[in-house]
Every structure is written in C-alpha cells, then in structure tokens.
C-alpha cells in the first residue's frame, strides 16, 4: 500500500458540499433511541427545523424534535426562561419519559451555563422532580454528528443509570454507537439473544426508528429503550461497547456501576464478527448456535466467491469516523485498496485507518481524491460529485434520502457483512459484465452516472420540510 498520506486538516476556508453534520443532530438521534423521549434543541428555530428535515428524509418517519425558539432578545439576555418554558410546555403537552436537551451554536456562543440552568430548573420546579432531564453540551461549531451522539449517550448514562448491588444473570448492556443502523441493532439483538442473553441497548433505535404503525398519534418517540431499562443497566453482567465514540459513555457507565466493559471497534467483517460471537459464547457459557455457524459458513463462501471482484479495486470512502473505520477495514479485508478515507471530523480512530490517504474533509475533497477510483462509498450527498466524475456510489451512513429502507440496512455480524459484501461486489460484477458495451470504465457515467443533473429533492422520497 506504500506510504499513508495523512492530511488531518484541510487548508480550505470554504467547506464545499459538506460531509459534516452538527453535534445537536447526533444528540437528537441518540435521544430518539429512548422510548417516549422528546429531544429539545436549545437554540433558534432553524437549528431544529433543519435537523428534523434531515432525519425525516433519512428514516421516512415523523421525528419528534422541539426547540426553545431563541430570538434575538433571549439570545443576548440569556436563554434560561426559554428553556424552562420549553421543558414545562413539553411536559404538559406530551408528558414524555425523558426530555433530552442539546445545546446549539447559538447557546454555546453565548456561553449558557447548562449545569447551572439544570440546578436552577430543578430548584424552581420541585413538582417536576420525577421528570427525567438530560442536558448535553453539543456546540455546532466543534466536533460533529458522532460527538453529539456520544455526548447525549453519556448524559443519559450519568442522569439515568443506577448502580446496583446485585447482578441479573444474563443481562448485558450494549452501548450502540451511531454507526449502527436500526437494522444493525436489530441484528445484534438477534445474535445476542441467540445465546440466551438479554441485552439492554442504549440507545435502541431498532424499536423506535425502524418503521412503526402506532395505534394513536404520539408526539414523542415511540419505542426504544425505556428509562426503567436504562436505570437497570447497573445490574448487568457486562457492557459491550460498540465503536470508538462510545468510549466516554462506557467510562461513565463503568465509573457509576462497576459493570465491566468489553470494547468492539467494529462488527463488520469475518474476524470482527468472530470476536463478538466468541465473546458472547464465553459470557453466556453456551456453544455457538447452529444458525450463526451456518451464517459464518455462508460468509466465508461469499468471501471466496466475491474476492475476485474486490481484489485491488480502488475505493474512496467518506463516512462518519467509526463507520468509516468499519467499512475501510472490511474493504481492506476483502483485498480492495482504500485510496482515500475522508472523515468529517478529527478523531482518534483515524489513526487506525488503512487507507492511502486519510483526510478530514468534505464531498468536494472526495470528488478530487476519487477521480480514478472504482467506487465511492458515502451518503446520498455524494451522488452529485460521483456523477460528475463518473464513479459509481454505494450509499451508506446518513443521510440516505434517495433510497428506501435506509434505516434498516444491516452490515454487522456474519449476515450483515455478507449482505454488504454482495451489494458492493455486485456493483463491480455488473460493471465487469457491462464492459463490452461501455468500453473503459472511467470517463463514462456508470452506475449512478445517470443521475447527472437530476435532483432528488425528496418528497415522494420522504423528505419533509416547509
């Protein structure tokens, strides 16, 4: 692979076609994995509206998200009044089990003292002492989506989890990072339960964001891990920590409960899945179920069948850091060359990436780095650049507004790895079969090239705005 080039910082002043999404949005997603929760952005209206639209377009679900509706005056004088009023209003109208407050650029620039506001709120509203309230600092101007997700999960752990003197046999905590889709969480639950273990996922997007048909209209999240389950996490035997960005939350959980953490940097790939399965077998003291053994066999078979099409393929990947790590590692496992790995933010996990170029950048950087690539792996925003340079795009991550079922994709465990392997492998395979009619691969608008000039605004694709 030769020397790895690392440009941790882009020298550009203008971010062009950003890959980055803001911290509060990540926090909102984490809060949405808690049952009957209302995420609340402490900032001006637009902060909430934009975040809401993005999540709606991706999940094609109604997204509960509220705002403290800061205006000019409250921005200058301080936002406590707005915050208190917002929490009280939400409590009166929707009686959620948890209100998750995320700050924004507006409140962070002002320097709102959130710890102080929290105590003041508790002091002034003794009648609401039963209401679970989590405050997370998530400034728009630092970090990104993953950091916000991590801050919210850490906040939930600190506020809700209770230490326990007893241990419930077979109960396992899973701190599920934002690189896991609702489909991934569902798959993970299946795997863990097949060992007779009972997992508590924090957050649990598989129940709230996987497409539900409620009997009545609810303004809060519906499904997800309950506040009671979170409180009981102290009685678990172990905590599985999935993803580098869950480390802080894991430390908080361990500090509070003394439940030991087992860390998994990824769950995509044969060896990564093996490690999970072996761990679960050890934890439960049970042999690996026949279903998983079979899945492993089919993955091994799929790797043999598929490796022809992966070998030495040049791939550019642009995703949130932990997903970027999982995908680039998987591609490297399959014999592909990751020529560029682009992350929206700087994090420790970038040090571990196996890629010729590792860069903190945006979609325009991907466009530059991927000019002679065979494939780009990124979110739906990558489609414009991919079309311009005529490289096919495999969509992963968030937002994915121009595909159905984005939230339910599975890419963890033997089965998920196999699905990812076939999906990307098929892109290569179909291009090889098409070569006669298309001539040389580059310079031709293959795959997604037909999207040139087309605009997926959504709507029928599920986008809400307005």
């Amino acid at each position, binding site marked *: 692979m030769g020397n790895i080039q690392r440009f941790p910082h882009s020298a550009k002043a203008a971010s062009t076609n950003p890959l980055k999404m803001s911290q509060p949005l990540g926090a909102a997603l984490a809060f949405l994995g808690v049952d009957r929760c209302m995420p*609340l952005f402490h900032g001006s209206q637009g902060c*909430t509206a934009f975040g809401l*639209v993005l999540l709606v377009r991706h999940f094609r679900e109604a997204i509960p998200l509220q705002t403290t509706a800061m205006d000019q005056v409250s921005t200058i004088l301080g936002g406590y009044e707005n915050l208190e009023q917002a929490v009280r209003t939400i409590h009166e109208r929707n009686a959620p089990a948890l209100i998750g407050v995320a700050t924004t*650029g507006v409140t962070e620039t002002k320097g709102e003292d959130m710890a102080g506001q929290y105590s003041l709120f508790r002091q002034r509203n003794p009648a609401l002492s039963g209401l679970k309230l989590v405050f997370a600092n998530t400034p728009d101007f630092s970090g990104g989506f993953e950091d916000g997700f991590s801050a919210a999960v850490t906040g939930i752990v600190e506020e809700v989890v209770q230490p326990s003197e007893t241990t419930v046999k077979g109960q396992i905590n899973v701190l599920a990072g934002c690189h896991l889709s609702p489909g991934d969480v569902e798959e993970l639950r299946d795997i863990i339960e097949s060992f007779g273990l009972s997992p508590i996922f924090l957050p649990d997007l598989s129940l709230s964001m996987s497409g539900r048909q409620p009997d009545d209209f609810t303004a809060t999240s519906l499904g997800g891990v309950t506040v009671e389950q979170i409180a009981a996490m102290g009685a678990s035997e172990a905590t599985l920590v999935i993803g580098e960005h869950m480390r802080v939350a894991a430390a908080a959980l361990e500090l509070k409960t003394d439940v030991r953490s087992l860390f998994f940097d990824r769950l995509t790939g044969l060896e990564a899945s093996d490690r999970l399965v072996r761990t679960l077998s050890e934890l439960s003291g049970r042999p690996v179920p026949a279903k998983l053994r079979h899945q492993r066999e089919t993955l091994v078979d799929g790797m043999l069948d598929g490796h022809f099409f992966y070998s030495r393929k040049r791939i550019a990947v642009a995703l949130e850091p932990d997903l970027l790590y999982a995908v680039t590692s998987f591609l490297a496992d399959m014999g592909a060359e990751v020529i560029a790995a682009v992350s929206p933010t700087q994090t420790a996990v970038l040090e571990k990436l196996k890629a010729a170029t590792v860069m903190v950048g945006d979609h325009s950087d991907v466009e530059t780095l991927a000019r002679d690539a065979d494939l780009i792996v990124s979110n739906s925003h990558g489609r414009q650049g991919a079309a311009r340079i005529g490289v096919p795009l495999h969509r992963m991550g968030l937002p994915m507004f121009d595909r159905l079922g984005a939230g339910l994709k599975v890419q963890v465990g033997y089965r998920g790895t196999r699905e990812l392997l076939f999906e990307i492998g098929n892109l290569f395979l179909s291009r090889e079969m098409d070569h006669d009619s298309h001539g040389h691969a580059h310079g031709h608008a293959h795959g997604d090239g037909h999207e040139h000039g087309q605009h997926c605004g959504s709507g029928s694709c599920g986008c809400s705005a307005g």
Partner: protein
Amino acid sequence: MLQEKLQDVFNEPGCSTNQAKSEKERKKGCSKALKPGAAAGGCAYDGAMIALQPIADAAHLVHGPIACLGNSWDNRGTKSSGSQLYRTGFTTDMSELDIIHGGEKKLYKAIKEVVQQYDPPAVFVYQTCVPAMIGDDIEAVCKFAAKKLGKPVIPVMAPGFVGSKNLGNKLAGETLLDHVIGTVEPEVTTPTDICIVGEYNLAGELWLVKPLLDEIGIRILSCISGDGRYNEVAQAHRARLTMVVCSQALVNVGRKMQERWGIPYFEGSFYGVSDMSDTLRTMARMLVERGADKAIIDRTEGVIAREESRVWRRLEPYKPRFDGKRVLLFTGGVKSWSMVTALEGAGLTIVGTSTKKSTKEDKERIKKMKGEEFHQWDDLKPRDIYKMLRDSEADIMMSGGRSQFIALKAKVPWLDLNQERHTPYAGYDGIVNLCEEIDKTLSNPIWRQVRLAAPWDSKPDSKPDVKPVGA
C-alpha cells in the same frame, strides 16, 4: 442597521394583512413570539436561502457553524435549465477558533476560494446567528471582497434568530432591492417584458407556464428567483410589469419596484384553471395599459380559450372517479384558495383547509364561496389531524412533507403540495398532473391491504374498507 430593515419590512404597506391592523399593532411587526417547546418551522436564514438559492449560477456561501448548511443543503427541488452551481453547498464551517478570533478573515478567504474556483457571476453570503452574535461585519467583508475580486458579493443579512422563515423571505427580497436589482442593464427590452416574483420553479413549474407566455408574446425578463440567473435578476428594473406570486413572502419587492422604477405589480397565481386564466388576462391587460401592442389581448384570449377547453376535456375522466371523494387540504398561503377552486372543478369535495399563511382576503374569499360551515383552521394540532383521518373524515390529505406521516400512519392517502414534490402543478397542465397524482394514489390497491388486520389478530381494524376509485 438590521433593526431598521426589520422595522421597514414589518411595516409593509403592500401587505394586506398588515394594512388591516391598527397603527400600534403594525409597529409590533408580524413576527409573533414563538412558544418555546411548541414551535415549528424554519428560521429567517432558512427563508432567505429559499428565496435566493434558485438563482442558479450564483454561489451561495453560508457564513456560520456547520449546522446551518451541513444539515440543510441539497434538500429542495427547485430546478435549473442550465448552471447547477446553486446545488453546491458552500460554508465557512466556523470552528471554535473562528468564534474566538472572529470569522471575518476566514469569510474573505472563503469568498476568494469560491470565486477563484467557480467564477460565478456573483456570490451571496448568508449571515447566520453565530457570526451575528460575535459581531462579524459581513457587510464590510462583502464590500471589500467585491472590490478586490471584481464581482458582486452580496451580504444577506438574515440571521436565524431575527424571526420566521417568512421574514427571511422578505429580507432576501430587501437584499435584492438593495444590492442586485437595477445594477445591470438588459441588452434588449421589449414592451412585454415582465418580472415574476416569488416563483421558485419547484419541480420545474415555471416551465409549464413559460411556453404559454412565449406563445402570447410575453417575455420573462427575470424570474425571482426560479431558474434564475444573476444578471437576469439584476435587470428586473426594466420590466414593464411585475407579477407577485407569493404575496406573503415577497410583496415588498413588487411594491418597491413600483416605487423606485414605476413598474406596476399585481398578485397572481399559477395554480388552478380560473386563477391561471385570470393571471394571463391581468398580465396582458396591464401590459397593454403600459403601451404594449393590443394584439396580445386577443392572443391571450385565444390561448385561454384553447387551454381551458383542453384542460376541462382532460379533467373529464377524473370526475366520475373523484365523485364523493373528500380532500383535506393542509397548506399555507395563496395556494389554499387556488387549490380549492381547482380541485372542486375536478369533482372533488374539499372538507377543509388550513389558512395559516393566508391573508384575510383569502379567508373571506373562501368563506364566501364555501359558506360558513366550511372548516378553516389557522392551526390544527397533529393529533387532531390524525384523528380526523383515522375517523375517515377525508379520503386524502394534501399538505407539505412535514405532516405526511400523520396521514401515512393513519393509513390515509397523502399527496405532497409543497416544495419537495417532483411533479409540477402550475398552469393548465399542472392541474391535470395534480389530478393524475390524486387519482393514482386514491386508486392504489395498497390502501385496502394496509388496513387489513393481521390474520392472527382477532380484533378487526376500525377502518372500513375503501371502495376503489371509480367503482
């Protein structure tokens, strides 16, 4: 500066809602205080971006932290017949250090990069909350950059926290009046040049209207801002007539163009058969009043007669299929009025409409036509909409994307009327498109299936079976 501008915009004499208020109320402006914890909708920056971004060949650079652009770019369906630059998201992505040291230098550098790399005819620079809070002088940076780089660099002063999306639309209009309109002279002018204001060419709607205007001999000198080009917008002051499409959003532009350059304006709509015809007639009449050749009136009447008979003929097959079908309209502004007439013409029954952004006049018009019994809601809670749909009070809901899941979760057909849709509904052809879309969704066999209870579920679903359309 911004405060004065806000006062000025609030005190819009062209706004009929505003004129109906007392002097004191008017001073308060039209931005209602939002209720924390119960507010929804975008901010002023959002509104400004919506109004200006369809200017397709300009670069739109957002000065602020990542949230303002990172979460929002690439999400509107406005179309361009040429340049695609407007679809590129540019932002300064302000970091902690920019906030401590001030973001002006980074902004200048960003403008320079964009100009050097893309060479657009102009750069719009959007002010957002955070730089406004730390006191970045965007106007000064833009002025400096314009001089240095030899290009118009236009500050759009609409930070989110000053108010609503609608206010942002108006501030965008003010930006055009202050910095753009009147700065370029057209090479040729004709006595039938018009300017259209507040039409964003969503799903290519303008393109259903333009051929008719071409046929009549009316030239769109500039459209603000659908399928817009910077230089065309800058030439708007040479139009003979302005049509204001969305009066709530941009009437200030129409009125001030009249004030400054003596261009009369009228409010019109491209939605619905009668409104479309009225619009064409008004256009022709007003152009003739301003000296255009009288022949365009005859040509207009010819086009109207032909198109109307064609559209009614094409709508005929839908009438029996729509018989007895009830529509819940949930949209804002002038659309609620135009759509009511259009849909009733096709044989649908409208059970009610929201009037959130409608003017007092619009509401009166609806009341006059539909009677006092007809539901008009200023604000309807999602839970209430859900209940109405669940109780089968309507067969289809038409609204913006925000409320689509209320309908879909109630297992009731839904159609997007707002900016995210892919089908154009403007003009005569647009109405036929709309009816086709309604028919398509109403007659889809999924509605019967999705309402079936699971076979192991003994409790039957409360929803009665729906008869297929036309049965």
